[in-house]
């Protein structure tokens, strides 16, 4: 199931706040279509009715009409006031103030991937965000380098991640599934390839996933894996990436402890297969131009061993 099951759209709300905003959207669309149709209708009517005829005398020089002016100001004013009320109401409901609650998940935007950690556990992962469905969760959003932005259209609001600031977002996902979004604030070369995948699970599955992922990585025993593991440590992969339970504890690139359990790599842009991983490590810049990972010019067989090792990290 690589394709996300959901149709990405703000009109396909899948969370509590998504629904709230959806209703507001609909109200607004009704009101604005009314105004737009009024303008177009009047325009067409005027164009048909008041077309100049040859030898027309100069039309009556009406300069003003107080009543019409009052209506012109009054009616939009009332509409605006109505929407102001709705704005305040929806805003308060969607984003209640946080009072030092512990966030369920902490998402840190990086150029160009997401670091995901779960406070209270040792779980650190990247790009694929597992969340429990049908439960109110609090997201803590931060950034390490430039401004990123969290947006899953089906969930409603987006929220900027600004270096030096901490933002929070409440979220209650309706039902399990895979939801897709993308970074929405321009963040440099690979802004386009910074997709978000949220995997919403039932409470049990989510807990299971958490315990599974809290474990350290399997130690490479198999001879085919030992070679890859050694390359990983030797070729300075370990300087940037972390594999919990080994010497590798870098914090620059994504945590790879359970890499093989992810469905996608490279911020949700390609399927997590051995070929894709192979092609990426072979020449990172070719697959993802501008990426911070350097090219290591590994021999083909060492590369294969490395990929095999990485793919054993279930």
């Amino acid at each position, binding site marked *: 199931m690589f394709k996300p099951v959901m149709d990405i759209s703000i009109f396909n709300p899948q969370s509590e706040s998504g629904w709230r905003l959806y209703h507001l959207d609909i109200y607004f669309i009704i009101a604005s279509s009314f105004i737009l149709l009024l303008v177009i209708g009047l*325009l067409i009517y005027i164009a048909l009715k008041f077309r100049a005829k040859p030898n027309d005398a100069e039309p009556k020089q009406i300069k003003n009409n107080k009543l019409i002016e009052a209506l012109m100001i009054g009616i939009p004013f009332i509409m605006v006031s109505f929407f102001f009320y709705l704005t305040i109401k929806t805003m308060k409901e969607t984003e209640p103030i946080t009072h030092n609650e512990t966030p369920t998940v902490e998402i840190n935007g990086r150029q160009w991937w997401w670091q995901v950690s779960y406070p209270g556990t040792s779980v650190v992962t990247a790009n694929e965000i597992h969340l429990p469905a049908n439960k109110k969760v609090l997201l803590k959003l931060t950034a390490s380098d430039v401004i990123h932005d969290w947006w899953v259209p089906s969930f409603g609001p987006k929220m*900027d991640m600004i270096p030096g600031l901490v933002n929070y977002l409440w979220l209650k996902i309706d039902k399990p599934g895979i939801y897709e979004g993308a970074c929405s604030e321009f963040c440099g070369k690979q802004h386009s390839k910074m997709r978000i995948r949220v995997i919403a699970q039932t409470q049990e599955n989510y807990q299971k996933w958490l315990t599974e992922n809290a474990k350290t990585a399997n130690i490479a025993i198999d001879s085919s894996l030992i070679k890859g593991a050694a390359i990983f440590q030797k070729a300075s992969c370990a300087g940037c990436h972390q594999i919990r339970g080994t010497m590798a504890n870098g914090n620059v690139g994504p945590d790879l402890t359970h890499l093989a359990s992810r469905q996608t790599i490279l911020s949700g842009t390609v399927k997590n297969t051995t070929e894709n991983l192979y092609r990426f490590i072979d020449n990172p810049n070719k697959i993802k131009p501008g990426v911070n990972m350097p090219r290591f010019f590994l021999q083909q067989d060492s590369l294969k061993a490395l990929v095999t090792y990485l793919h054993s990290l279930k």
Partner: protein
Amino acid sequence: METVNVPEPEESLPSTSISNDQGLLQWISTVDHKQIGILYLLMSVLFLLLGGVAALLIRVQLSVPNNNFLSPEMYNQLFTMHGTTMVFLVMTPAILGFSVYFVPLMIGANDLAFPRMNAFSLWIGLFGGMLLYFSFLAGGAPDAGWFNYAPLNQRAYSQSSGIDYYCIGLLLVGIGTVGTSINLIVTIIYYRAKGMSLRKLPVFVWMILINSFLIVAAFPPLNAALSMLLLDRQLQTHFFNNTSGGSPIVWQHLFWSFGHPEVYILILPSFGILSEVFQVYSRKPIFGYSFIVGSGIAIALLAFGVWVHHMFAVGLGLTVYSYFAASSMLIGVPTGVKVFNWLGTMWGGSLRFTTSMLFAMAFLVEFTIGGLSGVAFAIVPIDWQLTDSYFVVAHLHYVFVGGSLFGLMAGLFYWYPKMSGKMISEKLGKWFFWLFVIGFNMTFFIQHILGIKGMPRRVYTYPDLPGYTWMNMLSTIGGFLMSLSFLLLFYILHKSYKIGKPAGNDPWDAYTLEWTVSSPPKIRNFTELPPIYSYRAFRDLKENAKNNKHGK
């Protein structure tokens, strides 16, 4: 017996003493407001071509998913330059061009108050634009978007010197723009024809007056921000660099406290042009003169209190947002007043559907769409969904193109006979109109839906998700239609200039003073002026004459 004199500075104007031969040197050294106005328009066309090519390249890259036509580096430079160019080097000079050309003519003055400064402002602005483009040769254009958010604009994330050129170029453009605005304000306040009180100012001039005040007040925060950015990049200061105590938010505040008024700076002159066009082609006075002008002032005053609506997703707190939501929604009211006043102007008139009028009428529809999607962004929760998505791209193009540019087009077709002395081909003009309107809507309307479907803006490519491909392809085709229509426009302008019918002084039976003089006007605009009874001085003159004839 009292005669009306043309107001003039005590010393004779430099422009009126120069010779009239049209050599290139004379164009370069000119201080005549009409020639400078035309130079402004030509500058605008030059950068329109550059910015348009950038836009086309962008659309080609986005026509299919996972395209490799442009590298991400190149793409980022192109969209940054496209935005910067269109806002600062196309729209602004076009507006200044029309105002520098027509404001003195409409108020019965012979030139701007400071003709030499007028020339200086033009050339320094052009120089700034050139400098901005020079960055392509100097290692790379700016690549952080036209609003250039910190910390992406810092040296650590944008190593090429593009953003330094962005700072210097825009500072120079800013100096030129502010200089011209000051010039216009002084001209409008001190050099009006005798009897033309502010109550009798044509609406266009009113809008330019308001607009110039807006420019004078809005550019300083930008200049401050640009200076700080330049210091950050050149002297390693700590304004926007969060790792050493600076704040990226400050950049956003400063930039948008300029940036939002800038939107109104670009739209107000179009409001003015439309007000003239609607009057003349409906043969009626503007409906609710005081409301049109008053709403212009209201917009200008409110414009400085709404900038945070660009930052609704930043997380500044709901209290702040609710106030700014209120002010941002409020600004929709005077804008709506204008739209309905124009409809009121047409109501009961005798409408002539010239190309100019068609653009004005199309403006009403396109701008209403842009305005309504603008109100959507004032509604905080909707903004949370749609900001920084393709919906914003659609919205801002509906405002900038569907609003400002349609207004300027109406102005171009309205004033072309006056500027060139030749009538413009109406048949070809209508071809251009329809091609342009269809191309424009095809390009941008679909982008609303792309935004709703979750496509973020400023992506150099996108995955092959359901719907994305055909919508982007459609948009690209529309983009090509639009550029085709621009080629047609240049052809029309050129051809009309060569073989168009002579226009005569007053081809449209118009209302304002510029139509009392020859087309194109002589270097000394006025030797005589009619008495001014209202904001339609020329119409009063013709009307009185007619009545006198009947009386006799």
